[in-house]
């Protein structure tokens, strides 16, 4: 049947469920359907099942070519962009004896097609992005993010990391938290990528802001609790960073040891509707911070130990071990330099250095 392209384009529909089970579909048919699904955001369930043994004429004969076409529409893992642009709306029910072949095999479950797009579109997209990051141990973001190595992204990430260290006792007139400072950084073209990753959060000016993106991720570190017991001086501690490092090491080991308990637990978390838990969040931070964030810490030699200031009551105030500081730049510029202080170690990065790193 000949139907012109213009005719095809004018159709509108409200279909949310389409059951084409046992309708004698072939690979060619499924390829056509898959092609149509690229642009569809309304259909939520597509049933293509069909068991052999019934009437022969009704069995859907969908072989690898058809399945591949479907999988590429639902989860094209060739790049992060393609993952983000996949169909996150439609769940395809297909016979369980049919297997999916993706470019990421064998990292993925064979019946992945049957578990894709089970949640909301936003969660589905996030699930896929995290899966790629996870399955490729960060390599998935390598080539693509080379073009996005804008350090403006890193402060956002680190702002998120340090957000949980906010201390009300610190003088806010001298210290501007990076989270606040970069809250309205316009990421330009890079914002598009972050938007795709984190759910289309651009404001009306096209700017992606840390305050929009990272509040969705809960603090990586647990809140530090005040230790008021006794008169002993509280000592600065890198406990939180140690904890963070420990988590990273755990994950790192898990990536290498597939049988590792953490790996299994992490793997299960992808099948869990509540996959956006701490571990998943930690993973994406792990992938990104490991790639760009940590080398920054070794950029300058450590400064001498700073004495701990004593309070009026003679007790030494508990001082956070890590702080971010942004010094306002010239008029019209938001930031001239940033510093990260971790215990006795302080790293100062000027805008010039940032620019040079970028170049």
């Amino acid at each position, binding site marked *: *049947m000949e*139907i012109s392209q213009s*005719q*095809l*384009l*004018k*159709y*509108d*529909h*409200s*279909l*949310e*469920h*389409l*059951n*084409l*089970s*046992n*309708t*004698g*579909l*072939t690979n060619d*048919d499924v390829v*056509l*359907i898959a*092609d*149509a*699904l*690229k*642009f*569809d*955001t*309304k*259909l939520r369930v597509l*049933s293509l099942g069909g068991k052999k043994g*019934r*009437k022969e*004429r*009704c069995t859907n004969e969908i072989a690898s070519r058809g399945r591949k076409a479907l999988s590429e529409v639902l989860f094209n893992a060739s790049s992060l962009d393609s993952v983000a642009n996949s169909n996150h709306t439609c769940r395809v029910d297909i016979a369980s004896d049919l297997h999916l072949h993706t470019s990421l095999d064998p990292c993925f479950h064979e019946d992945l097609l049957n578990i894709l797009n089970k949640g909301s579109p936003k969660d589905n997209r996030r699930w896929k992005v995290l899966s790629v990051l996870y399955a490729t141990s960060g390599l998935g973001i390598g080539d693509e993010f080379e073009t996005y190595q804008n350090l403006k992204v890193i402060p956002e990430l680190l702002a998120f990391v340090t957000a949980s260290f906010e201390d009300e006792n610190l003088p806010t007139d001298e210290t501007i938290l990076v989270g606040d400072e970069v809250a309205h950084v316009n990421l330009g073209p890079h914002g598009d990528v972050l938007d795709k990753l984190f759910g289309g959060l651009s404001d009306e000016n096209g700017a992606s802001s840390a305050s929009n993106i990272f509040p969705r991720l809960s603090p990586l570190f647990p809140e530090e609790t005040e230790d008021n017991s006794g008169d002993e001086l509280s000592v600065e501690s890198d406990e939180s960073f140690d904890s963070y490092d420990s988590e990273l090491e755990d994950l790192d080991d898990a990536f290498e040891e597939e049988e590792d308990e953490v790996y299994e637990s992490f793997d299960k978390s992808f099948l869990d509707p509540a996959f956006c838990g701490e571990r998943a969040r930690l993973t994406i931070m792990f992938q990104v911070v490991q790639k760009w964030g940590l080398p920054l810490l070794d950029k300058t030699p450590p400064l001498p130990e700073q004495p701990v200031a004593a309070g009026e009551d003679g007790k030494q105030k508990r001082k956070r071990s890590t702080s971010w500081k942004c010094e306002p730049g010239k008029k019209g510029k938001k930031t001239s330099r940033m510093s990260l202080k971790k215990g006795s170690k302080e790293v100062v990065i000027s805008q010039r250095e940032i620019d040079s790193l970028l170049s």
Partner: protein
Amino acid sequence: MKSRNVHTLEFNGKSGDSNQKRITCQFLCDILESNTNIKRLILRQSTRFTSNLYKAIENHPSLEELHITNMGIGTKEGLLRKILNTSRRVKYLNLNRTIIVAADTEAQGGYGNISVSVVEVRSLFRASKS
């Protein structure tokens, strides 16, 4: 046909006299026309799918679910497409075990030679591109 507050209309057809099925189909059309509250239409097994029935479905103001199962339906005039194009309310379409028969095959007498056309199906999804 007296109007009733019916939400689901289900009809299980069976093979047999074509004329009888045609009469039955007309009966279905009348029910659809006089009952505007029907939201779910279930047609199973060898219901005669005439153009009148297509029109009744197409013009129905409330239908949200269409179950056309275990049948052969023709695409002679793109009727299925018309239904789904004009009846924007249809959210659930179940074509399980229903063969969409191309016009020429239908003209040759039934769907002994199966020729599936998914052009109709594919066309359902095109709108969101524009």
